């Protein structure tokens, strides 16, 4: 019972929120915000309490300390997103749908938890679908904006197609190995052509979720169309979860054909980093800009996965943690600005420092962390990723990755330039942000600054990741 505590707790609070939402009168819907955040905080804290781990449902569901850590990281991310979406939820259009937002978000989180701790492809598929389908509704959340509707359509259709291709791959796996349980599949797996086809189709399905290059085209439009908090959720939590399960499956199920998928990832990561950066250079809309930046970051994460070692796994988990804090920092600022002033273009950020300095400092720190500049955590994250890749002797790949960090530094500095250097006659006027946003941004800044220097964080992850490999 206790083994599945993360999912059960989430289900519990979802049900509680549903009940609360039913009994709230029409005009008091915003009352649900405080309990939702408190409950989420409670779940996050309880998640950290060490407890038993093991296998349930005859191998379909299995947890290990690392998987628990991954779930806790996702919980922290969702908590920050909740705090950041408050000012958006209080707007006029979302007044009566606040409860739905929380419930749907939590259900996708439950789906991700199941996906991460899945022991066989069926549970993995169910978790995946539970994580993606509700997201489409969230993407289309703002009913009065065409962009949001278009984003919803694009998301639901491409995700359906990708799950179709994924399933075709799974069926081939089942066909060739006769089983869907991970341990048995990995035992029976050889590099027969059909099995390679199956792996590639599985890879395509996952690549869609992590928005790796040939499968990333949906990301930019959906990120731009969806409401900003949903975009941050998509780019951080859904991508993080997908990365986690992708890595686990690669290391456990497909370890027999490790040499093969290492080359696949080598090619894809170069493509992703370069194309992500090339597109991000030209963006003027902050959401689309952060979309392409997160695509490029996905390319960097692949460097860790290519490490194929305990070091690789640790650096990926560590980088995702740092990535969550830095990305949510940037998205938090963009969210509060867009909800308060409706402005979403980088040119509107001109002269931001002179009007509200604290916001622009947070944005700068977040961007520097994304770019990998010391002393913030991003530098450590990126450096360790490169160490993992270099451990495999792939110095050329590291060099290409490092060149890409320079291009990424260029467009991150473009935003910093807008905020600090450019003068503007009508900058975004000063506004006070509410308590929740301040709390959310404070958590991000704390994360960015502390995780870098605090070596115990990295060491803790390393200790946990002995099991899997």
């Amino acid at each position: 019972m206790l083994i599945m505590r993360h999912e059960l707790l989430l289900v519990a609070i979802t049900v509680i929120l549903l009940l609360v939402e039913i009994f709230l009168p029409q005009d008091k819907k915003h009352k649900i915000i405080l309990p939702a955040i408190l409950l989420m905080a409670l779940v996050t804290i309880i998640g950290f309490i060490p407890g038993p781990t093991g296998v349930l449902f005859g191998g379909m569901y299995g947890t290990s300390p690392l998987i628990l850590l991954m779930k806790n990281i996702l919980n922290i991310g969702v908590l920050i997103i909740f705090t950041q979406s408050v000012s958006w939820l209080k707007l006029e259009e979302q007044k009566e749908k606040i409860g739905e937002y929380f419930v749907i978000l939590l259900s996708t989180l439950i789906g991700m938890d199941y996906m991460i701790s899945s022991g066989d492809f069926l549970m993995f598929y169910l978790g995946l679908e539970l994580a993606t389908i509700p997201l489409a509704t969230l993407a289309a959340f703002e009913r009065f904006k065409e962009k949001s509707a278009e984003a919803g359509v694009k998301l639901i259709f491409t995700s359906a197609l990708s799950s179709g291709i994924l399933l075709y791959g799974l069926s081939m796996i089942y066909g060739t190995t006769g089983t869907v349980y991970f341990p048995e599949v990995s035992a029976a797996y050889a590099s027969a052509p059909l099995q390679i086809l199956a792996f590639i189709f599985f890879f395509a399905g996952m690549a869609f979720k992590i928005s790796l290059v040939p499968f990333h085209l949906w990301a930019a439009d959906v990120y731009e169309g969806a409401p900003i908090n949903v975009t941050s959720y998509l780019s951080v939590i859904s991508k993080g979860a997908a990365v986690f399960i992708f890595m686990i499956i690669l290391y456990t199920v497909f370890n027999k054909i490790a040499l093969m998928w290492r080359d696949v990832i080598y090619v894809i990561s170069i493509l992703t980093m370069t194309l992500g950066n090339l597109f991000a250079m030209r963006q003027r809309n902050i959401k689309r800009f952060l979309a392409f930046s997160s695509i490029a970051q996905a390319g960097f994460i692949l460097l860790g996965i290519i490490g194929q070692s305990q070091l690789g796994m640790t650096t990926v988990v560590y980088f995702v943690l740092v990535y969550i804090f830095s990305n949510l920092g940037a998205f938090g600022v963009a969210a509060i600005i867009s909800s308060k002033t409706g402005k979403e273009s980088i040119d509107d950020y001109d002269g931001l420092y002179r009007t509200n300095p604290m916001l622009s400092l947070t944005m700068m720190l977040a961007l520097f962390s994304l770019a990998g500049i010391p002393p913030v955590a991003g530098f450590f994250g990126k450096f360790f990723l490169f160490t993992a890749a270099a451990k495999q002797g792939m110095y050329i790949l590291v060099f290409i990755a490092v060149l890409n960090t320079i291009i990424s530094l260029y467009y991150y500095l473009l935003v910093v330039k807008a905020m600090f250097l450019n003068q503007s006659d009508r900058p975004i006027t000063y506004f006070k942000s509410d308590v929740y946003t301040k709390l959310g941004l404070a958590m991000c800044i704390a994360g960015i600054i502390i995780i870098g220097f605090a070596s115990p964080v990295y060491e803790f992850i390393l200790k946990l990741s002995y099991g899997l490999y």
Partner: protein
Amino acid sequence: MFEGVPLTWFLIVATLMFFIGIYGFLVRKNLITILMSLELILNSVNINFVAFNKLLYPQHLEGMFFTVFIIAVAAAEASVAIAIIINIYRRLVNIDVEKMEEMKY
């Protein structure tokens, strides 16, 4: 009556359905018909699963379970897709997939 039909025939039919579905997805203009081609893809995978389970590994029924769940999930997916299509229709008064390109480059 299945004893006579070998596994390969099933696979051929499934693959054909799969690629017809993809072709439909890429070519059709109306969102609903795209949704239909999606269902086609999912059902082709069901055939695959059932065929493999029945003919190759009859002793335990993972394939069947898989198919049941796929059908359930496909239903959920279809319902959400149609809801969004209705939402699009309310906003753009048409559901031509080429018109939906406000966000690009």
